């Protein structure tokens, strides 16, 4: 799949994110839009998964440690064929398989339950250890938030992954710089974030998290690193793709109203036409 096609899919995922959060009148558009290009590359270029057999034991696994980014995950899963497209409109509604935060037993393609920040990386480590024990060559991906790196458990897990040399694990940090109460640097500074991960024994790669080619190259590079886990620090823009949402703290966990939804989708459709 070429870059242009991936950009098209990412744009469709962004449209779905807006529609889902609008329909639900709740949810997290900002941190979903920032991760849309990352999820697109994972599902449409890199990960070895089978929508017809979601629990296939040799599959690559994804843990959305920043569990609130369900809109982007469900949109990618729908695009990939894990869940019917029309089902995304049930997001966050009563009796839906698409819970506000992901639950592995509700949604096909969701490999781990998350939601309470800080927990996903440890579980990804467990999957990576199991892969080594079982002599499987699958890879495990964990998508982390930057605010999430304020949780102590992330650093416990960072130590463990390096200690157990989990080179079948790639973490991707969606580094959009914002959290609910404001910019990371004002709320609880996480910098120098790349130095921290390196000091914990990880191979680090820093990229523009909205550049499809850079995302692909980084994921490919991670596969070649032996004896240690890799983290891709993806500099992103919260709300990416919707002008009035970009870099706005307020769009962390707020749904668009009708007018905002229509404006956002019009912008994204225009963007799609520019991609061609």
């Amino acid at each position, binding site marked *: 799949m070429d870059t242009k096609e991936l950009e098209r899919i990412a744009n469709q995922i962004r449209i779905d994110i807006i529609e889902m959060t609008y329909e639900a009148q709740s949810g997290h558009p900002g941190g979903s839009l920032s991760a849309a290009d990352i999820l697109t590359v994972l599902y449409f270029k890199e990960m070895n998964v089978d929508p017809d057999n979601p629990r296939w*034991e040799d599959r690559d*696994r994804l*843990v959305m440690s920043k569990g609130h980014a369900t809109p982007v995950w469900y949109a990618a899963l729908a695009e990939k064929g894990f869940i019917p497209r029309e089902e995304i409109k049930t997001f966050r509604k009563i009796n839906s398989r698409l819970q506000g935060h992901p*639950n*592995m*037993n509700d949604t096909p393609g969701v*490999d*781990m*339950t*998350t*939601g*309470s920040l*800080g*927990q*996903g*990386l*440890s*579980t*990804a*480590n*467990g*999957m*990576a*250890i*199991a*892969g080594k*024990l*079982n002599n499987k060559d699958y890879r495990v991906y964990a998508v982390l938030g930057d605010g999430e790196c304020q949780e*102590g*458990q992330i650093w*416990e*897990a960072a*130590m*463990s992954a390096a*200690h*157990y040399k989990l080179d079948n694990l790639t973490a991707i940090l969606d580094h959009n710089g914002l959290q609910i109460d404001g910019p990371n640097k004002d709320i609880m500074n996480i910098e120098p974030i790349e130095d921290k991960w390196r000091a914990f024994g990880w191979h680090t790669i820093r990229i523009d998290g909205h550049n499809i080619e850079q995302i692909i190259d980084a994921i490919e590079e991670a596969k070649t690193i032996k004896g240690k886990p890799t983290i891709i620090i993806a500099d992103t823009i919260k709300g990416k793709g919707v002008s009035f949402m970009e870099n706005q703290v307020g769009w962390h966990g707020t749904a668009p109203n009708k007018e905002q939804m229509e404006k956002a989708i019009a912008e994204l459709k225009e963007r799609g036409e520019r991609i061609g």
Partner: protein
Amino acid sequence: MDKIATRDAYGKTLLELGSQNKDIVVLDADLSKSTKTNEFAKAYPDRFFDMGISEQDMIGTAAGLATCGKIPFASSFAVFATGRAYDQVRDSICYPNLNVKIAATHAGLTVGEDGATHQALEDISLMRGLPNMTVIVPADATSATKLIKLAAEYKGPVYIRLGRPSVPVIYQDTQEFQIGKGIRLKEGRDISIIATGIMVSKAIEAADMLQKEGITAEVIDIHTIKPIDKELIIDTARRTGRVITCEEHNIYGGLGSAVCEVLSENYPARVKRIGVKDTFGESGTPDELLKKYGLTSEEIVKAAREML
């Protein structure tokens, strides 16, 4: 009567399970000599993971292993396995209903000299409140061995509460166990003593003492606090009309609460709860602590006399 610590039974049972099933993996948080997982570590180093002093990460890693078909046993002291890692047990294990066994040692006052910070007196309450969780509290080494094996066969989260000191062996090897089914150790007409964990042997002693006064007491071992054996609890209350519960745990949220829930909804009967009375523990020898906090056979006898 032989005395063996339930944690020793755990260490031996793990070895046996490890030889039978290669999917059994063990995690510890820098306490493997105390929790007795060190024997498994020696025998199966590739399947043992010391996570260092990081209980939250240990529980999360166990959850991840379980998603890939492993049967992880995660061990630490009860206070850390349940308290420090509570949110991880809740969201990474119980909500997705993963097949992780949390085998926690050094529960209760009988930790002894380490004092209050290390004496879990609320762990049953914490674990009992989590959907999908099964809570097992063995009374002796024999029941610990059998129940740990049953827990390994059972699919789903299990909390197994184990102790530090040597405790009397109550059961013969031939005794059969079933998760969720209590055991009537002694029949009686006047009063029911429902106990769990190390208090079961105290309950037997108390029943023997009462016998000398002409009072016959039923003794019941509720080794599974959740799911609790409602039938047996209702049945014994019907027979005697008076119930004493005994546990090495806070009187709030543990066995006593669970028994009161069953009886008040099904067969209201008078209940007296013996346990730690909503206070923290302190340093001392296990026996000194049990005496000071009222967890003795004499206290059970006293409570029985008061109720009759």
